[in-house]
Protein backbone atom coordinates (compact mmCIF):
# COMPACT_ATOMS: atom_id res chain seq x y z
CA UNK A 1 0.00 0.00 0.00
CA UNK A 2 1.35 3.39 -0.88
CA UNK A 3 0.26 6.93 -0.16
CA UNK A 4 0.71 9.72 -2.67
CA UNK A 5 2.54 12.68 -1.15
CA UNK A 6 1.53 16.01 -2.67
CA UNK A 7 3.81 19.03 -2.56
CA UNK A 8 2.06 22.29 -1.66
CA UNK A 9 -1.41 21.40 -2.93
CA UNK A 10 -2.82 24.77 -1.86
CA UNK A 11 -0.55 26.90 -4.05
CA UNK A 12 -1.83 26.20 -7.57
CA UNK A 13 -5.25 24.99 -6.45
CA UNK A 14 -6.08 28.33 -4.82
CA UNK A 15 -4.89 30.21 -7.91
CA UNK A 16 -7.05 28.09 -10.21
CA UNK A 17 -10.03 28.20 -7.86
CA UNK A 18 -9.99 32.00 -7.49
CA UNK A 19 -9.75 32.70 -11.22
CA UNK A 20 -13.48 33.11 -11.79
CA UNK A 21 -14.19 34.58 -8.34
CA UNK A 22 -13.36 38.30 -8.49
CA UNK A 23 -14.95 38.81 -5.06
CA UNK A 24 -12.19 36.74 -3.44
CA UNK A 25 -9.34 38.84 -2.04
CA UNK A 26 -6.39 37.84 0.12
CA UNK A 27 -5.09 39.61 3.21
CA UNK A 28 -1.68 38.65 4.54
CA UNK A 29 0.30 39.73 7.61
CA UNK A 30 3.93 39.24 6.63
CA UNK A 31 3.67 35.48 6.22
CA UNK A 32 2.79 35.35 2.54
CA UNK A 33 5.13 32.64 1.28
CA UNK A 34 4.89 30.83 4.60
CA UNK A 35 1.13 30.68 4.04
CA UNK A 36 1.60 29.54 0.44
CA UNK A 37 0.04 32.60 -1.22
CA UNK A 38 3.17 34.18 -2.72
CA UNK A 39 2.31 32.88 -6.18
CA UNK A 40 -1.35 33.85 -5.66
CA UNK A 41 -0.17 37.41 -4.99
CA UNK A 42 1.83 37.36 -8.22
CA UNK A 43 -1.15 35.97 -10.14
CA UNK A 44 -3.66 38.48 -8.75
CA UNK A 45 -1.71 41.53 -7.53
CA UNK A 46 -4.85 43.70 -7.54
CA UNK A 47 -6.65 41.33 -5.17
CA UNK A 48 -3.81 40.84 -2.70
CA UNK A 49 -3.38 43.25 0.21
CA UNK A 50 -0.43 43.31 2.56
CA UNK A 51 -1.66 44.27 6.00
CA UNK A 52 1.72 44.45 7.66
CA UNK A 53 2.42 42.51 10.83
CA UNK A 54 -0.77 43.84 12.41
CA UNK A 55 -3.45 41.20 12.83
CA UNK A 56 -6.00 43.19 14.85
CA UNK A 57 -6.27 45.69 12.03
CA UNK A 58 -6.30 42.88 9.48
CA UNK A 59 -9.39 41.28 11.05
CA UNK A 60 -11.20 44.63 11.04
CA UNK A 61 -10.13 45.38 7.47
CA UNK A 62 -11.48 41.98 6.44
CA UNK A 63 -14.77 42.78 8.16
CA UNK A 64 -15.07 46.05 6.21
CA UNK A 65 -14.34 44.33 2.91
CA UNK A 66 -16.86 41.59 3.70
CA UNK A 67 -19.54 44.15 4.53
CA UNK A 68 -19.03 45.50 1.01
CA UNK A 69 -19.48 42.14 -0.68
CA UNK A 70 -15.89 40.95 -0.99
CA UNK A 71 -14.81 37.61 0.47
CA UNK A 72 -11.49 38.09 2.23
CA UNK A 73 -9.28 35.03 2.64
CA UNK A 74 -6.95 35.83 5.52
CA UNK A 75 -3.76 33.82 5.23
CA UNK A 76 -1.45 33.59 8.21
CA UNK A 77 -0.47 31.27 11.01
CA UNK A 78 -3.47 30.09 13.00
CA UNK A 79 -2.19 31.44 16.33
CA UNK A 80 -2.01 34.97 15.02
CA UNK A 81 -5.66 34.86 13.94
CA UNK A 82 -7.41 33.61 17.06
CA UNK A 83 -4.94 34.44 19.85
CA UNK A 84 -3.52 37.72 18.69
CA UNK A 85 -6.78 39.23 17.53
CA UNK A 86 -9.61 37.39 19.28
CA UNK A 87 -11.69 40.41 20.29
CA UNK A 88 -11.51 41.69 16.71
CA UNK A 89 -12.37 38.21 15.42
CA UNK A 90 -15.38 38.00 17.75
CA UNK A 91 -16.72 41.55 17.53
CA UNK A 92 -15.68 42.79 14.08
CA UNK A 93 -16.11 39.50 12.16
CA UNK A 94 -18.12 36.83 14.01
CA UNK A 95 -20.83 38.89 15.68
CA UNK A 96 -21.96 40.46 12.38
CA UNK A 97 -21.73 36.99 10.75
CA UNK A 98 -19.51 38.26 7.94
CA UNK A 99 -18.16 36.15 5.09
CA UNK A 100 -14.53 36.27 6.18
CA UNK A 101 -12.43 33.13 5.66
CA UNK A 102 -9.56 32.67 8.09
CA UNK A 103 -7.02 30.24 6.69
CA UNK A 104 -4.88 29.27 9.67
CA UNK A 105 -1.61 27.47 9.03
CA UNK A 106 0.47 25.37 11.44
CA UNK A 107 -2.30 23.81 13.52
CA UNK A 108 -1.15 22.10 16.70
CA UNK A 109 2.36 20.68 16.74
CA UNK A 110 3.00 21.16 13.02
CA UNK A 111 5.84 23.62 13.49
CA UNK A 112 9.27 23.54 15.03
CA UNK A 113 8.64 27.24 15.74
CA UNK A 114 7.68 26.37 19.27
CA UNK A 115 4.93 27.39 21.60
CA UNK A 116 4.39 30.86 20.08
CA UNK A 117 3.60 29.30 16.70
CA UNK A 118 1.54 26.30 17.82
CA UNK A 119 -2.23 26.64 17.67
CA UNK A 120 -3.28 24.15 20.31
CA UNK A 121 -6.61 25.54 21.60
CA UNK A 122 -8.01 27.20 18.47
CA UNK A 123 -10.75 24.63 17.87
CA UNK A 124 -11.92 25.01 21.49
CA UNK A 125 -12.04 28.78 21.29
CA UNK A 126 -13.62 29.02 17.87
CA UNK A 127 -16.12 26.24 18.55
CA UNK A 128 -17.27 28.44 21.44
CA UNK A 129 -17.58 31.47 19.17
CA UNK A 130 -21.14 31.99 17.91
CA UNK A 131 -21.70 32.11 14.13
CA UNK A 132 -18.32 30.47 13.47
CA UNK A 133 -17.85 27.48 11.19
CA UNK A 134 -14.70 25.50 12.03
CA UNK A 135 -13.04 23.25 9.44
CA UNK A 136 -9.85 21.21 9.49
CA UNK A 137 -8.03 19.67 6.55
CA UNK A 138 -6.60 16.17 6.90
CA UNK A 139 -5.10 15.51 3.48
CA UNK A 140 -4.37 16.98 0.05
CA UNK A 141 -7.89 16.36 -1.24
CA UNK A 142 -9.30 18.34 1.67
CA UNK A 143 -6.75 21.13 1.20
CA UNK A 144 -8.03 21.35 -2.37
CA UNK A 145 -11.73 21.07 -1.61
CA UNK A 146 -12.02 23.06 1.61
CA UNK A 147 -12.26 26.27 -0.43
CA UNK A 148 -15.60 25.26 -1.95
CA UNK A 149 -16.90 24.24 1.46
CA UNK A 150 -15.83 27.52 3.03
CA UNK A 151 -17.11 29.65 0.18
CA UNK A 152 -20.61 28.19 0.44
CA UNK A 153 -21.00 29.21 4.11
CA UNK A 154 -22.93 32.43 4.73
CA UNK A 155 -20.85 33.50 7.70
CA UNK A 156 -17.29 33.43 9.03
CA UNK A 157 -15.19 30.31 8.50
CA UNK A 158 -11.99 29.23 10.23
CA UNK A 159 -9.83 26.60 8.55
CA UNK A 160 -6.98 24.59 10.06
CA UNK A 161 -4.87 24.35 6.92
CA UNK A 162 -2.05 22.00 5.97
CA UNK A 163 0.91 23.15 3.91
CA UNK A 164 4.06 21.73 2.41
CA UNK A 165 4.15 18.00 1.69
CA UNK A 166 0.68 16.62 2.38
CA UNK A 167 -0.49 13.02 1.96
CA UNK A 168 -3.48 12.24 -0.21
CA UNK A 169 -5.58 9.92 1.94
CA UNK A 170 -8.89 10.40 0.13
CA UNK A 171 -9.48 10.31 -3.62
CA UNK A 172 -9.85 13.58 -5.48
CA UNK A 173 -13.31 12.44 -6.47
CA UNK A 174 -14.39 12.44 -2.82
CA UNK A 175 -14.12 16.09 -1.74
CA UNK A 176 -14.66 17.52 1.73
CA UNK A 177 -18.30 18.19 2.53
CA UNK A 178 -19.66 20.43 5.27
CA UNK A 179 -20.62 18.53 8.44
CA UNK A 180 -20.02 15.14 6.86
CA UNK A 181 -17.58 12.69 8.39
CA UNK A 182 -15.70 10.10 6.36
CA UNK A 183 -15.86 6.46 7.35
CA UNK A 184 -12.24 5.38 7.01
CA UNK A 185 -12.54 1.85 8.43
CA UNK A 186 -15.31 -0.46 9.58
CA UNK A 187 -15.34 -2.41 12.82
CA UNK A 188 -17.52 -2.80 15.88
CA UNK A 189 -15.22 -3.10 18.89
CA UNK A 190 -14.00 0.46 19.14
CA UNK A 191 -14.86 3.77 17.49
CA UNK A 192 -11.86 5.91 16.60
CA UNK A 193 -12.64 9.49 15.71
CA UNK A 194 -9.80 11.62 14.37
CA UNK A 195 -9.22 14.96 12.70
CA UNK A 196 -6.38 16.65 10.83
CA UNK A 197 -3.05 14.86 10.84
CA UNK A 198 -4.31 12.40 13.44
CA UNK A 199 -6.33 10.64 10.76
CA UNK A 200 -3.15 9.57 8.99
CA UNK A 201 -1.80 8.28 12.31
CA UNK A 202 -5.10 6.63 13.08
CA UNK A 203 -5.10 4.76 9.76
CA UNK A 204 -1.74 3.21 10.63
CA UNK A 205 -2.97 2.27 14.08
CA UNK A 206 -6.20 0.75 12.78
CA UNK A 207 -4.44 -1.52 10.29
CA UNK A 208 -2.22 -2.89 13.06
CA UNK A 209 -5.10 -3.25 15.48
CA UNK A 210 -7.02 -5.23 12.90
CA UNK A 211 -4.18 -7.77 12.77
CA UNK A 212 -4.60 -8.23 16.51
CA UNK A 213 -8.29 -8.81 16.09
CA UNK A 214 -9.52 -5.42 17.27
CA UNK A 215 -12.21 -4.07 14.95
CA UNK A 216 -12.23 -0.31 14.73
CA UNK A 217 -14.81 1.93 13.12
CA UNK A 218 -12.67 4.92 12.16
CA UNK A 219 -14.26 8.29 11.38
CA UNK A 220 -12.41 11.27 9.98
CA UNK A 221 -13.81 14.64 11.01
CA UNK A 222 -13.17 17.73 8.88
CA UNK A 223 -16.00 19.89 10.26
CA UNK A 224 -15.63 20.68 13.97
CA UNK A 225 -18.61 23.01 13.91
CA UNK A 226 -21.34 22.27 13.04
CA UNK A 227 -20.95 18.71 14.40
CA UNK A 228 -24.30 17.16 13.59
CA UNK A 229 -23.67 14.44 11.02
CA UNK A 230 -25.97 11.53 12.09
CA UNK A 231 -23.09 9.18 11.27
CA UNK A 232 -21.32 10.44 14.40
CA UNK A 233 -24.08 9.49 16.79
CA UNK A 234 -24.64 6.16 15.04
CA UNK A 235 -20.95 5.35 15.34
CA UNK A 236 -20.82 6.31 19.02
CA UNK A 237 -23.89 4.21 19.76
CA UNK A 238 -22.46 1.20 17.92
CA UNK A 239 -19.03 1.18 19.57
CA UNK A 240 -19.10 -1.89 21.77
CA UNK A 241 -16.12 -1.12 24.01
CA UNK A 242 -16.12 2.64 23.72
CA UNK A 243 -14.59 5.52 21.84
CA UNK A 244 -11.11 6.94 21.27
CA UNK A 245 -10.64 10.44 19.87
CA UNK A 246 -7.35 11.81 18.57
CA UNK A 247 -6.70 15.45 17.76
CA UNK A 248 -3.70 17.66 17.07
CA UNK A 249 -4.95 20.01 19.80
CA UNK A 250 -5.51 20.13 23.53
CA UNK A 251 -8.00 17.55 24.75
CA UNK A 252 -9.94 20.40 26.38
CA UNK A 253 -12.66 21.84 24.19
CA UNK A 254 -11.82 20.29 20.83
CA UNK A 255 -12.84 17.09 19.05
CA UNK A 256 -12.69 14.93 22.18
CA UNK A 257 -14.90 17.35 24.05
CA UNK A 258 -17.36 17.58 21.17
CA UNK A 259 -17.63 13.79 21.14
CA UNK A 260 -18.07 13.73 24.94
CA UNK A 261 -20.91 16.24 24.59
CA UNK A 262 -22.66 14.03 22.04
CA UNK A 263 -22.21 10.90 24.14
CA UNK A 264 -23.61 12.61 27.22
CA UNK A 265 -26.46 14.41 25.47
CA UNK A 266 -27.61 11.20 23.83
CA UNK A 267 -27.31 9.34 27.15
CA UNK A 268 -25.09 6.67 25.56
CA UNK A 269 -23.02 6.04 28.68
CA UNK A 270 -19.97 5.00 26.65
CA UNK A 271 -16.38 5.19 27.82
CA UNK A 272 -14.16 7.72 26.07
CA UNK A 273 -10.38 8.07 25.80
CA UNK A 274 -9.19 11.42 24.46
CA UNK A 275 -5.81 11.63 22.77
CA UNK A 276 -4.25 15.03 22.30
CA UNK A 277 -2.19 17.52 24.25
CA UNK A 278 -3.06 16.83 27.86
CA UNK A 279 -3.57 20.38 29.13
CA UNK A 280 -0.03 21.38 28.28
CA UNK A 281 1.80 23.70 25.92
CA UNK A 282 4.33 22.12 23.59
CA UNK A 283 7.75 23.32 22.43
CA UNK A 284 9.88 23.66 19.33
CA UNK A 285 10.82 20.33 17.78
CA UNK A 286 10.04 18.21 14.74
CA UNK A 287 6.54 16.89 14.14
CA UNK A 288 7.79 13.34 14.63
CA UNK A 289 9.47 14.18 17.92
CA UNK A 290 6.49 16.08 19.30
CA UNK A 291 3.99 13.46 18.14
CA UNK A 292 6.00 10.82 19.98
CA UNK A 293 6.51 12.98 23.08
CA UNK A 294 2.83 13.81 23.46
CA UNK A 295 1.45 10.49 22.29
CA UNK A 296 -0.07 11.85 19.11
CA UNK A 297 1.50 9.28 16.79
CA UNK A 298 0.05 5.95 15.69
CA UNK A 299 1.47 4.08 18.64
CA UNK A 300 -0.05 6.73 20.92
CA UNK A 301 -3.43 5.94 19.41
CA UNK A 302 -2.81 2.21 19.92
CA UNK A 303 -2.03 2.95 23.57
CA UNK A 304 -5.31 4.85 23.79
CA UNK A 305 -7.19 1.83 22.48
CA UNK A 306 -5.37 -0.34 25.02
CA UNK A 307 -6.43 2.03 27.81
CA UNK A 308 -9.99 1.81 26.60
CA UNK A 309 -9.93 -1.97 26.40
CA UNK A 310 -8.07 -2.28 29.69
CA UNK A 311 -5.60 -4.77 28.24
CA UNK A 312 -2.22 -4.56 26.56
CA UNK A 313 -2.27 -5.69 22.94
CA UNK A 314 1.43 -6.39 22.70
CA UNK A 315 1.96 -3.87 19.90
CA UNK A 316 5.19 -1.90 19.67
CA UNK A 317 6.06 0.95 17.35
CA UNK A 318 8.02 -1.41 15.10
CA UNK A 319 4.89 -3.48 14.56
CA UNK A 320 2.98 -0.62 12.96
CA UNK A 321 2.02 -1.21 9.37
CA UNK A 322 3.73 1.54 7.44
CA UNK A 323 2.77 3.01 4.16
CA UNK A 324 5.45 3.70 1.61
CA UNK A 325 5.18 7.38 0.86
CA UNK A 326 5.38 8.33 -2.80
CA UNK A 327 6.78 11.80 -3.16
CA UNK A 328 6.48 13.53 -6.51
CA UNK A 329 9.41 15.13 -8.26
CA UNK A 330 9.67 18.32 -6.19
CA UNK A 331 11.92 17.87 -3.20
CA UNK A 332 10.38 17.39 0.19
CA UNK A 333 13.49 18.60 1.92
CA UNK A 334 12.99 22.03 0.34
CA UNK A 335 9.73 22.20 2.28
CA UNK A 336 11.48 21.66 5.55
CA UNK A 337 13.71 24.68 5.12
CA UNK A 338 10.58 26.83 4.80
CA UNK A 339 9.04 25.47 7.94
CA UNK A 340 9.04 28.66 9.98
Amino acid sequence: MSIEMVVRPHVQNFIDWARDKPEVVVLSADLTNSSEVGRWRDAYPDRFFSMGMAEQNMLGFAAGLAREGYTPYIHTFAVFIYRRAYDQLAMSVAYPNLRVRMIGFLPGILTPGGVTHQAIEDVAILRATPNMTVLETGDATEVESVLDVAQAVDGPVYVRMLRGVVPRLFPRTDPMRLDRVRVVAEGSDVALITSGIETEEGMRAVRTLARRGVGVRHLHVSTHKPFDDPEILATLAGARAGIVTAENHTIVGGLGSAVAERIAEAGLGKRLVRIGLRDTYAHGASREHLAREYGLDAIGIVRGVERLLGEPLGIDAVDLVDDAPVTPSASASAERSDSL
Partner: protein
Amino acid sequence: MADRSATWQADTRAVAAGIRRRVFEHVLRNGEGYVSQACSAAEMLAMLYTRTLRLAPLRAPIRPGPFVGVPGPRTPGYLTGAIYHGPTAPDLDRFIFSPAQYALALYATLIEVGRLAPDGLDDFNRDGGTVEMIGAEHSPGIESTTGSLAQALSQAAGIALARRLRGEAGLVWVMMSDGEFEEGQTWEALANAAFHGLANLRVVVDANGQQCDGLVSAVGNLEPLADRIRAFGASCDEVDGHDLDALDAAMRRPSDRPHVVLARTDPTRGVPLLAEKAPLIHTLRFVSPDERARYQAAYEAMAQEVELR
Protein backbone atom coordinates in the same frame (compact mmCIF):
# COMPACT_ATOMS: atom_id res chain seq x y z
CA MET B 1 -36.18 69.35 14.68
CA ALA B 2 -34.00 72.40 14.82
CA ASP B 3 -35.03 75.59 13.07
CA ARG B 4 -33.72 75.95 9.56
CA SER B 5 -32.14 79.37 9.51
CA ALA B 6 -30.61 81.67 6.99
CA THR B 7 -26.99 80.52 7.25
CA TRP B 8 -25.64 77.01 7.56
CA GLN B 9 -23.80 78.08 10.68
CA ALA B 10 -27.03 79.12 12.41
CA ASP B 11 -28.65 75.88 11.32
CA THR B 12 -25.77 73.75 12.56
CA ARG B 13 -25.53 75.71 15.79
CA ALA B 14 -29.23 75.11 16.42
CA VAL B 15 -28.76 71.37 15.88
CA ALA B 16 -25.82 71.34 18.29
CA ALA B 17 -27.85 73.17 20.93
CA GLY B 18 -30.69 70.71 20.41
CA ILE B 19 -28.30 67.76 20.90
CA ARG B 20 -27.14 69.12 24.26
CA ARG B 21 -30.66 69.87 25.41
CA ARG B 22 -32.08 66.48 24.44
CA VAL B 23 -29.20 64.62 26.09
CA PHE B 24 -29.30 66.73 29.24
CA GLU B 25 -33.06 66.35 29.52
CA HIS B 26 -32.84 62.62 29.02
CA VAL B 27 -30.11 62.14 31.61
CA LEU B 28 -32.04 64.14 34.18
CA ARG B 29 -35.13 62.05 33.52
CA ASN B 30 -33.06 58.87 33.66
CA GLY B 31 -31.19 59.87 36.80
CA GLU B 32 -27.76 59.32 35.26
CA GLY B 33 -26.01 59.06 31.92
CA TYR B 34 -23.52 60.21 29.34
CA VAL B 35 -23.66 64.03 29.22
CA SER B 36 -20.06 65.19 28.76
CA GLN B 37 -19.83 63.37 25.42
CA ALA B 38 -22.70 65.47 24.06
CA CYS B 39 -21.15 68.63 25.50
CA SER B 40 -17.89 68.02 23.64
CA ALA B 41 -19.18 66.44 20.43
CA ALA B 42 -22.37 68.43 19.74
CA GLU B 43 -20.80 70.70 17.12
CA MET B 44 -18.95 67.94 15.24
CA LEU B 45 -22.01 65.69 15.19
CA ALA B 46 -24.15 68.60 14.03
CA MET B 47 -21.56 69.45 11.36
CA LEU B 48 -21.40 65.89 10.12
CA TYR B 49 -25.15 65.49 9.76
CA THR B 50 -26.05 68.97 8.51
CA ARG B 51 -23.15 69.83 6.26
CA THR B 52 -20.37 67.28 5.86
CA LEU B 53 -21.87 63.86 5.20
CA ARG B 54 -23.52 63.27 1.86
CA LEU B 55 -26.35 60.94 2.88
CA ALA B 56 -29.61 60.07 1.14
CA PRO B 57 -32.59 61.86 2.63
CA LEU B 58 -35.26 59.83 4.43
CA ARG B 59 -38.92 60.21 3.59
CA ALA B 60 -39.70 60.38 7.28
CA PRO B 61 -37.91 59.87 10.57
CA ILE B 62 -37.63 56.19 11.52
CA ARG B 63 -39.25 54.83 14.66
CA PRO B 64 -36.83 52.39 16.30
CA GLY B 65 -38.04 48.82 16.11
CA PRO B 66 -37.71 46.07 18.72
CA PHE B 67 -34.62 43.91 19.06
CA VAL B 68 -35.11 41.06 16.59
CA GLY B 69 -32.01 39.03 17.37
CA VAL B 70 -28.31 39.12 16.69
CA PRO B 71 -26.92 38.75 13.17
CA GLY B 72 -26.62 35.12 12.18
CA PRO B 73 -28.29 32.22 10.45
CA ARG B 74 -31.54 32.78 12.36
CA THR B 75 -31.89 36.40 11.24
CA PRO B 76 -31.72 36.50 7.45
CA GLY B 77 -32.08 39.95 5.94
CA TYR B 78 -30.68 41.55 9.09
CA LEU B 79 -30.68 45.35 8.92
CA THR B 80 -28.18 47.55 10.73
CA GLY B 81 -28.60 51.03 12.14
CA ALA B 82 -27.25 52.30 8.83
CA ILE B 83 -30.87 52.42 7.60
CA TYR B 84 -31.11 55.71 9.49
CA HIS B 85 -28.54 57.05 7.00
CA GLY B 86 -30.73 56.20 4.02
CA PRO B 87 -29.93 53.98 1.03
CA THR B 88 -26.26 53.82 0.05
CA ALA B 89 -25.05 54.92 -3.38
CA PRO B 90 -21.62 55.11 -5.03
CA ASP B 91 -21.38 58.89 -4.77
CA LEU B 92 -22.77 59.12 -1.24
CA ASP B 93 -20.74 59.01 1.97
CA ARG B 94 -20.76 56.40 4.70
CA PHE B 95 -20.55 57.16 8.40
CA ILE B 96 -19.05 54.67 10.84
CA PHE B 97 -19.50 55.54 14.49
CA SER B 98 -16.69 54.32 16.70
CA PRO B 99 -17.20 55.47 20.32
CA ALA B 100 -20.37 53.52 21.11
CA GLN B 101 -20.49 55.13 24.56
CA TYR B 102 -21.50 58.33 22.69
CA ALA B 103 -24.68 56.64 21.51
CA LEU B 104 -27.04 58.96 23.37
CA ALA B 105 -25.46 61.99 21.68
CA LEU B 106 -25.77 60.25 18.31
CA TYR B 107 -29.45 59.42 18.85
CA ALA B 108 -30.13 63.04 19.85
CA THR B 109 -28.38 64.13 16.66
CA LEU B 110 -30.48 61.81 14.51
CA ILE B 111 -33.64 63.25 16.08
CA GLU B 112 -32.44 66.80 15.46
CA VAL B 113 -31.81 66.14 11.77
CA GLY B 114 -35.06 64.24 11.24
CA ARG B 115 -33.69 60.72 10.86
CA LEU B 116 -34.92 59.26 14.17
CA ALA B 117 -38.47 59.80 15.44
CA PRO B 118 -38.61 62.46 18.18
CA ASP B 119 -39.86 59.93 20.75
CA GLY B 120 -37.09 57.50 19.80
CA LEU B 121 -35.26 58.16 23.05
CA ASP B 122 -38.21 56.67 24.93
CA ASP B 123 -36.68 53.32 23.97
CA PHE B 124 -33.23 54.25 25.31
CA ASN B 125 -31.78 51.46 27.44
CA ARG B 126 -35.22 49.81 27.51
CA ASP B 127 -35.36 46.02 27.69
CA GLY B 128 -36.17 44.52 24.31
CA GLY B 129 -35.35 47.70 22.41
CA THR B 130 -32.60 48.65 19.98
CA VAL B 131 -31.75 52.12 21.30
CA GLU B 132 -29.05 50.69 23.50
CA MET B 133 -27.03 52.63 26.05
CA ILE B 134 -23.77 51.50 24.43
CA GLY B 135 -25.01 51.14 20.88
CA ALA B 136 -24.58 48.03 18.76
CA GLU B 137 -25.19 47.60 15.06
CA HIS B 138 -28.94 47.30 15.47
CA SER B 139 -29.01 50.73 17.13
CA PRO B 140 -29.99 53.90 15.23
CA GLY B 141 -27.15 55.33 13.15
CA ILE B 142 -24.75 52.54 14.08
CA GLU B 143 -23.51 50.23 11.34
CA SER B 144 -20.99 48.10 13.20
CA THR B 145 -20.61 46.96 16.78
CA THR B 146 -17.86 49.07 18.27
CA GLY B 147 -18.39 49.12 22.03
CA SER B 148 -15.04 47.35 22.34
CA LEU B 149 -13.28 50.52 21.35
CA ALA B 150 -10.93 51.24 18.45
CA GLN B 151 -12.25 48.54 16.14
CA ALA B 152 -14.22 50.83 13.82
CA LEU B 153 -11.31 52.50 12.05
CA SER B 154 -10.00 49.21 10.69
CA GLN B 155 -13.49 48.25 9.53
CA ALA B 156 -13.97 51.65 7.91
CA ALA B 157 -10.61 51.26 6.16
CA GLY B 158 -11.79 47.93 4.77
CA ILE B 159 -14.96 49.60 3.54
CA ALA B 160 -12.91 52.44 2.04
CA LEU B 161 -10.68 49.93 0.24
CA ALA B 162 -13.73 48.11 -1.13
CA ARG B 163 -15.21 51.39 -2.34
CA ARG B 164 -11.97 52.34 -4.03
CA LEU B 165 -11.81 48.95 -5.73
CA ARG B 166 -15.28 49.66 -7.11
CA GLY B 167 -14.33 53.19 -8.16
CA GLU B 168 -16.91 54.87 -5.92
CA ALA B 169 -16.65 58.61 -5.30
CA GLY B 170 -18.20 58.66 -1.84
CA LEU B 171 -16.10 59.07 1.28
CA VAL B 172 -16.01 56.89 4.40
CA TRP B 173 -16.21 58.98 7.56
CA VAL B 174 -15.40 57.74 11.04
CA MET B 175 -16.04 59.50 14.31
CA MET B 176 -13.68 58.55 17.11
CA SER B 177 -12.89 59.66 20.64
CA ASP B 178 -9.36 60.52 21.72
CA GLY B 179 -9.20 57.72 24.29
CA GLU B 180 -9.32 55.25 21.41
CA PHE B 181 -5.83 56.38 20.44
CA GLU B 182 -4.52 54.48 23.46
CA GLU B 183 -5.38 51.21 21.70
CA GLY B 184 -2.68 49.79 19.47
CA GLN B 185 -5.22 48.86 16.82
CA THR B 186 -5.83 52.53 16.05
CA TRP B 187 -2.20 52.95 15.08
CA GLU B 188 -2.17 49.72 13.10
CA ALA B 189 -5.19 51.01 11.22
CA LEU B 190 -3.77 54.47 10.54
CA ALA B 191 -0.44 53.09 9.35
CA ASN B 192 -2.08 50.52 7.11
CA ALA B 193 -4.72 52.89 5.70
CA ALA B 194 -1.90 55.30 4.83
CA PHE B 195 0.14 52.46 3.33
CA HIS B 196 -2.77 51.63 1.04
CA GLY B 197 -3.28 55.33 0.22
CA LEU B 198 -6.91 55.41 1.35
CA ALA B 199 -7.61 59.08 0.58
CA ASN B 200 -11.34 58.34 0.79
CA LEU B 201 -11.05 57.66 4.53
CA ARG B 202 -11.79 60.61 6.84
CA VAL B 203 -11.78 60.68 10.62
CA VAL B 204 -13.07 63.25 13.03
CA VAL B 205 -11.83 62.87 16.60
CA ASP B 206 -13.54 64.30 19.65
CA ALA B 207 -10.41 65.17 21.62
CA ASN B 208 -12.19 66.12 24.82
CA GLY B 209 -9.30 64.92 26.98
CA GLN B 210 -11.61 62.68 28.99
CA GLN B 211 -11.92 58.97 29.47
CA CYS B 212 -13.54 56.64 31.98
CA ASP B 213 -10.87 57.01 34.66
CA GLY B 214 -10.55 60.76 34.21
CA LEU B 215 -8.19 62.94 32.19
CA VAL B 216 -6.55 61.31 29.19
CA SER B 217 -3.34 63.05 30.20
CA ALA B 218 -3.44 61.25 33.56
CA VAL B 219 -4.60 57.84 32.31
CA GLY B 220 -2.24 57.43 29.35
CA ASN B 221 -0.83 60.49 27.67
CA LEU B 222 -1.35 60.79 23.90
CA GLU B 223 0.39 64.06 23.13
CA PRO B 224 1.58 65.32 20.81
CA LEU B 225 -1.40 63.60 19.18
CA ALA B 226 -1.53 65.55 15.91
CA ASP B 227 2.18 64.96 15.30
CA ARG B 228 1.79 61.29 16.09
CA ILE B 229 -1.09 60.98 13.63
CA ARG B 230 0.92 62.70 10.90
CA ALA B 231 3.92 60.51 11.67
CA PHE B 232 1.77 57.47 10.93
CA GLY B 233 1.07 58.76 7.43
CA ALA B 234 -2.27 60.55 7.71
CA SER B 235 -2.86 64.25 7.24
CA CYS B 236 -4.18 65.98 10.33
CA ASP B 237 -5.84 69.32 11.04
CA GLU B 238 -6.09 70.32 14.67
CA VAL B 239 -8.99 72.70 15.34
CA ASP B 240 -11.29 74.07 18.01
CA GLY B 241 -14.07 71.51 17.91
CA HIS B 242 -16.71 74.08 18.82
CA ASP B 243 -15.74 76.50 16.00
CA LEU B 244 -17.99 75.63 13.09
CA ASP B 245 -15.99 77.47 10.42
CA ALA B 246 -12.75 75.86 11.58
CA LEU B 247 -14.37 72.41 11.66
CA ASP B 248 -15.85 72.95 8.21
CA ALA B 249 -12.52 73.97 6.68
CA ALA B 250 -10.70 71.04 8.28
CA MET B 251 -13.33 68.51 7.24
CA ARG B 252 -13.34 69.74 3.65
CA ARG B 253 -9.58 69.90 3.25
CA PRO B 254 -8.46 67.93 0.21
CA SER B 255 -5.94 65.23 1.07
CA ASP B 256 -4.11 62.55 -0.86
CA ARG B 257 -4.11 60.27 2.19
CA PRO B 258 -6.33 59.41 5.15
CA HIS B 259 -7.33 62.67 6.75
CA VAL B 260 -7.89 63.20 10.47
CA VAL B 261 -9.65 66.20 11.97
CA LEU B 262 -8.47 66.43 15.55
CA ALA B 263 -11.18 68.50 17.23
CA ARG B 264 -10.11 69.87 20.58
CA THR B 265 -13.22 70.16 22.71
CA ASP B 266 -14.53 71.09 26.12
CA PRO B 267 -16.46 68.26 27.83
CA THR B 268 -18.36 70.76 29.97
CA ARG B 269 -19.45 73.05 27.12
CA GLY B 270 -23.07 74.03 27.70
CA VAL B 271 -23.20 72.36 31.13
CA PRO B 272 -20.49 74.22 33.09
CA LEU B 273 -21.66 72.62 36.34
CA LEU B 274 -19.87 69.48 35.19
CA ALA B 275 -16.55 71.20 35.88
CA GLU B 276 -17.21 70.75 39.61
CA LYS B 277 -17.07 66.96 39.12
CA ALA B 278 -14.04 67.02 36.83
CA PRO B 279 -12.15 64.96 36.01
CA LEU B 280 -14.67 62.16 36.75
CA ILE B 281 -17.34 63.16 34.25
CA HIS B 282 -17.49 60.09 31.99
CA THR B 283 -21.03 59.53 33.24
CA LEU B 284 -23.08 61.96 35.28
CA ARG B 285 -24.45 60.62 38.56
CA PHE B 286 -25.96 62.80 41.26
CA VAL B 287 -24.58 62.48 44.77
CA SER B 288 -27.44 64.28 46.50
CA PRO B 289 -30.95 65.65 45.88
CA ASP B 290 -29.45 69.11 46.17
CA GLU B 291 -26.98 68.44 43.39
CA ARG B 292 -29.69 67.04 41.23
CA ALA B 293 -31.79 70.15 41.82
CA ARG B 294 -28.92 72.36 40.71
CA TYR B 295 -28.56 70.38 37.50
CA GLN B 296 -32.33 70.57 37.00
CA ALA B 297 -32.14 74.35 37.32
CA ALA B 298 -29.29 74.44 34.81
CA TYR B 299 -31.40 72.39 32.42
CA GLU B 300 -34.38 74.73 32.86
CA ALA B 301 -32.14 77.67 31.97
CA MET B 302 -30.88 75.83 28.88
CA ALA B 303 -34.42 74.94 27.88
CA GLN B 304 -35.36 78.61 28.02
CA GLU B 305 -32.80 79.30 25.33
CA VAL B 306 -33.07 76.17 23.21
CA GLU B 307 -36.46 75.37 21.80
CA LEU B 308 -37.30 71.87 20.68
CA ARG B 309 -40.01 71.23 18.23
